[in-house]
């Protein structure tokens, strides 16, 4: 009984010691260095190509190819959290009145704990998804209980001098819909996302969607593909199309490729012009601008933000609080 207690005390005092904390920090540094030197989150064959069979297997199964999401990194973070909580408790226990240095230290260490907890929450519970939404259409946001209608997308360019035509800002006008009722309208731009019911919507990208239909062996199908990307549309046909100008009536350049044939069909077609294929036909019906929206929810953010405030406050009180 007493021996057990003694052993327990030893383990706790080891976990709580400054030396152990420093060892954890050094381990994090080393793991992080590996995490930047080894390309992360690739497939096994990528590493086999790069490092050879044996080394690749070692790196892959030890977690060094995905350091920051590895079990080891999680364990180290938890140990650091435990170590910090002992250290923070001790700091608060021995505080004296007007010991600003001490208050600062205790607060900043507590702030670090909050940040680590927030980081774990973010790591496990944040969701993020990317949507490409044509202008004037409605997008259902998964799991968030509301829809978004994209009313407009605009690019603002720099005007004068040699930097003419460099984009200054991208804007999307959005309307939030709940049960098909309009709740509100807002404009988002890069660096200015909107936040609604814990979900944030970011302006991330833009592009054009080429729309049309294909009929193969009597079957008709509509398609909507990003300009310049090769996408399978129907009946073993792949398409890559780009608009010839800025509007649909200037026509489209296309490349149609059948999975089993070598020679692709390449050409230029006007709006609604029929392109004949051996099994049917294709035509382009519209060119739509789309906006690329990143939609995410992250319950860790408010936690991390409060940790940041505690950490900053603590550090500056410690630095400028006078009394040593």
């Amino acid at each position, binding site marked *: 009984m007493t021996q057990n207690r003694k052993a327990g005390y030893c383990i706790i005092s080891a976990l709580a010691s*400054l*030396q152990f*904390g*420093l060892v954890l*920090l*050094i381990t*994090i*540094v080393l793991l*992080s*260095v590996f*995490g*930047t030197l080894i390309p*992360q989150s690739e497939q096994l064959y990528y590493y086999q190509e790069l490092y050879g069979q044996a080394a690749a297997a070692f790196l892959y199964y030890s977690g060094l190819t995905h350091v*920051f999401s590895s079990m080891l990194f999680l364990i180290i973070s938890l140990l650091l959290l435990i170590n910090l909580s002992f250290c923070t408790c001790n700091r608060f226990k021995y505080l004296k009145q007007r010991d600003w240095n001490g208050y600062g230290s205790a607060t900043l260490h507590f702030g670090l704990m909050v940040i680590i907890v927030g*980081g774990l929450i*973010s790591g496990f519970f944040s969701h*993020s998804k990317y949507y490409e939404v044509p202008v004037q259409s409605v997008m259902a946001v998964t799991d968030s209980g509301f829809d978004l209608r994209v009313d407009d997308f605009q690019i603002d360019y*720099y005007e004068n001098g040699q*930097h003419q035509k*460099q*984009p*200054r*800002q*991208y804007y999307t006008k959005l309307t939030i819909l709940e049960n098909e009722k309009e709740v509100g309208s807002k404009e988002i*731009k*890069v*660096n*200015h*996302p909107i936040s609604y019911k814990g979900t*944030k919507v*970011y302006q*991330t990208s833009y592009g054009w969607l080429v729309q049309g239909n294909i009929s193969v062996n009597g079957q008709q199908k509509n398609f909507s593909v990003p300009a310049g990307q090769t996408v399978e549309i129907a009946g073993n046909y792949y398409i890559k199309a780009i608009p010839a100008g800025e509007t649909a009536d200037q026509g489209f350049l296309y490349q149609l490729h059948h999975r089993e044939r070598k020679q692709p069909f390449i050409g230029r077609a006007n709006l609604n012009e029929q392109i004949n294929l051996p099994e049917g036909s294709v035509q382009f019906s519209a060119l739509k601008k789309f906006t690329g929206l*990143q939609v*995410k929810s*992250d319950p860790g*953010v408010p936690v*991390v*933000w409060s940790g*940041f405030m505690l*950490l*900053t406050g603590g*550090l*500056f009180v410690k*630095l400028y609080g006078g009394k040593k």
Partner: protein
Amino acid sequence: MFYSWGVELINLAFSGYLISSLLYLVVTWINREPIGRLAYWTAAVSFATHTTALTFRAVAAGRLPFATMHEFILMFAWGVILTYLFVQARFKIPLLGLLVVPMAVLLLGYAAAMNQEIRPLMPALQSYWLQLHVLVAIVAYGAFGVSFGTAVVYLIKNNSGSGLDYLPAKEVLERVMYKSIAIGFPFMTLVLITGAVWAEEVWGRWWSWDPKETWALITWIIYAIYLHARFVRGWQGAKAAWMAVIGFGAVLFTLFGVTILMSGLHSYS
């Protein structure tokens, strides 16, 4: 006009720092007080020129010179010299100038070889958080640059045994090294925090383990270890000085190594 004046003044400042470095080199051979003072004032005048150049560039760009790698290196050198001028005025550490002023020479030389064009801000960079991010980075890296110089002086003193009497006592050097890191550290913390808040606003992820932010965190942890190691027996003295050297190595790697060797989100810096 302001743009080309700015470039000319930067070249002048570069020459001034070079002359100051050479004077500091002379001081190591003939240790004469007036030459040391001349070296210091040459650095100070070059710093004033450097400041004016940055002001002109800001006027020409219509914004603070915080947006390109070229501009950041100019600001980095500026921060290092600013901290140096303060520390030297207060503590008078011979040799520190010889270690720190050439840093500015190298940085400005490197900056001159880069694309110096003033570019308008791309949408991702239009954020007050970015400006704050760079501002605190200049303070932090300036202080770390000086702590590095002091650490090297400490190690030289430490290895010379009883020689090099004109260098300050090891305790003084240790104190300067500690002070500059203790001042730089909260600002380094703010570099990470402002970066995270900005990343959340622009990419929707406050932390993504991108190589540059990972190396900034590595830098922060190394200095955190330094600040704690003082309380652990056997980690003070030369070991602590080496940590200050390694910490600044991490600063330089974050700025140059990562940019040159690794790809990531910080493509514009």
